[in-house]
């Protein structure tokens, strides 16, 4: 009864690594030899992973063009076999892979664009959650405000880059004009990814609110995060920043440190 368990690892190596297929494979299939059939299977395996990557990285694909993207994905697939039964999990290491991929070295911003696309991909498939309940917040005494711990929505991500990655991302969305020109020296970018209903939205934060949100993201209390941000950015406008982030649905909930 172990036959399947015995044969699968060898079959997997034949597909993924191109090893000799295991001898137990039924070779009675009339149309193709075993090695041709394995090649067809492998081609579908590669094609599916390629399509999964193309689905997760459409902007990278447009930036480098189809031929280059296919080479990139083939190299990625060779180094990063799929580890999950869910193809939506495939492609997480792309930013790091591109950073080390010699033919793409010239495009210094490409790893950060890939990181932003992965954040968008994860945001799209993140769990649903409510938004901050201001009614519940209004019942909280002011003395508890410094101890507030804001919980980020599971679809909220930040990606920081020295390059204008949010502009690059927007220029490659469906319906965006073709005749864009982006100056890489336009300054760094704190991209904010959120999901509104089923749409992923990419915005930008200034340095102060980005720092504040990154501290909040670590589970730091509102009081400490605000004090820490004000040290570096004395002109930090908490009220404006908080209103904006709450209205965009960045927070799902809050707790109060020290209260049950």
């Amino acid at each position, binding site marked *: 009864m172990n036959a399947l368990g015995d044969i699968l690892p060898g079959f997997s190596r034949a597909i993924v690594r191109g090893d000799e297929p295991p001898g137990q494979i039924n070779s009675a299939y009339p149309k193709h030899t075993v090695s041709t059939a394995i090649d067809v299977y*492998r081609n579908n395996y590669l094609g599916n992973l390629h399509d999964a990557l193309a689905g*997760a990285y459409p902007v990278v694909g447009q*930036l480098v063009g189809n031929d280059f993207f296919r080479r990139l994905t*083939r190299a990625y697939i060779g180094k990063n076999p799929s580890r999950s039964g869910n193809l939506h999990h495939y492609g997480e290491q792309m930013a790091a892979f591109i950073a080390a991929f010699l033919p793409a070295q010239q495009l*210094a911003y490409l790893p950060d664009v890939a990181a932003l696309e992965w954040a968008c991909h994860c945001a799209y498939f993140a769990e649903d959650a409510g938004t901050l309940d*201001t009614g*519940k917040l209004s019942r909280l005494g*002011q003395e508890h405000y410094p101890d507030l711990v804001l919980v980020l929505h599971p679809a909220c991500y930040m990606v920081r880059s020295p390059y204008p990655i949010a502009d690059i991302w927007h220029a490659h969305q469906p319906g965006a004009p073709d005749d864009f020109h982006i100056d890489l020296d336009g300054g760094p970018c704190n991209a904010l990814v959120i999901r509104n209903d089923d749409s992923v939205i990419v915005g930008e934060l200034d340095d102060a609110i980005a720092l504040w949100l990154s501290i909040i993201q670590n589970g730091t209390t509102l*009081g400490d995060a605000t004090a820490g941000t004000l040290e570096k950015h004395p002109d930090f406008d908490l009220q404006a920043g908080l209103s904006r982030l709450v209205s965009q649905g960045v927070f799902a909930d809050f707790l109060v440190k020290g209260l049950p």
Partner: protein
Amino acid sequence: MENHQKLLSIAIGGLLALGLAGNASAADKKVEMEKCFGVAKAGMNDCSSNKSAHSCAGQATKNNDPMDFVAVPKGTCDKIAGGSLMDSGGMMKKAM
């Protein structure tokens, strides 16, 4: 550490005054946002899409691995420029 009590009160007070988010509609909102399982992003996890990208048997040889080509990006990247473009690679300098 200073806890900036007053600043926090003003910020949260402003938030509550605006009546943003949440509130009584939170439950309805949740239903509205409910996603259908199995709905995939366009083109993803869609078996049929693979047919357009690949002709199965036609490409099924071991020898068409394209990795030994010198690959040059040829997409919209030529619309993105700036002095920092060449920095990280180190191999490409502006004067070419």
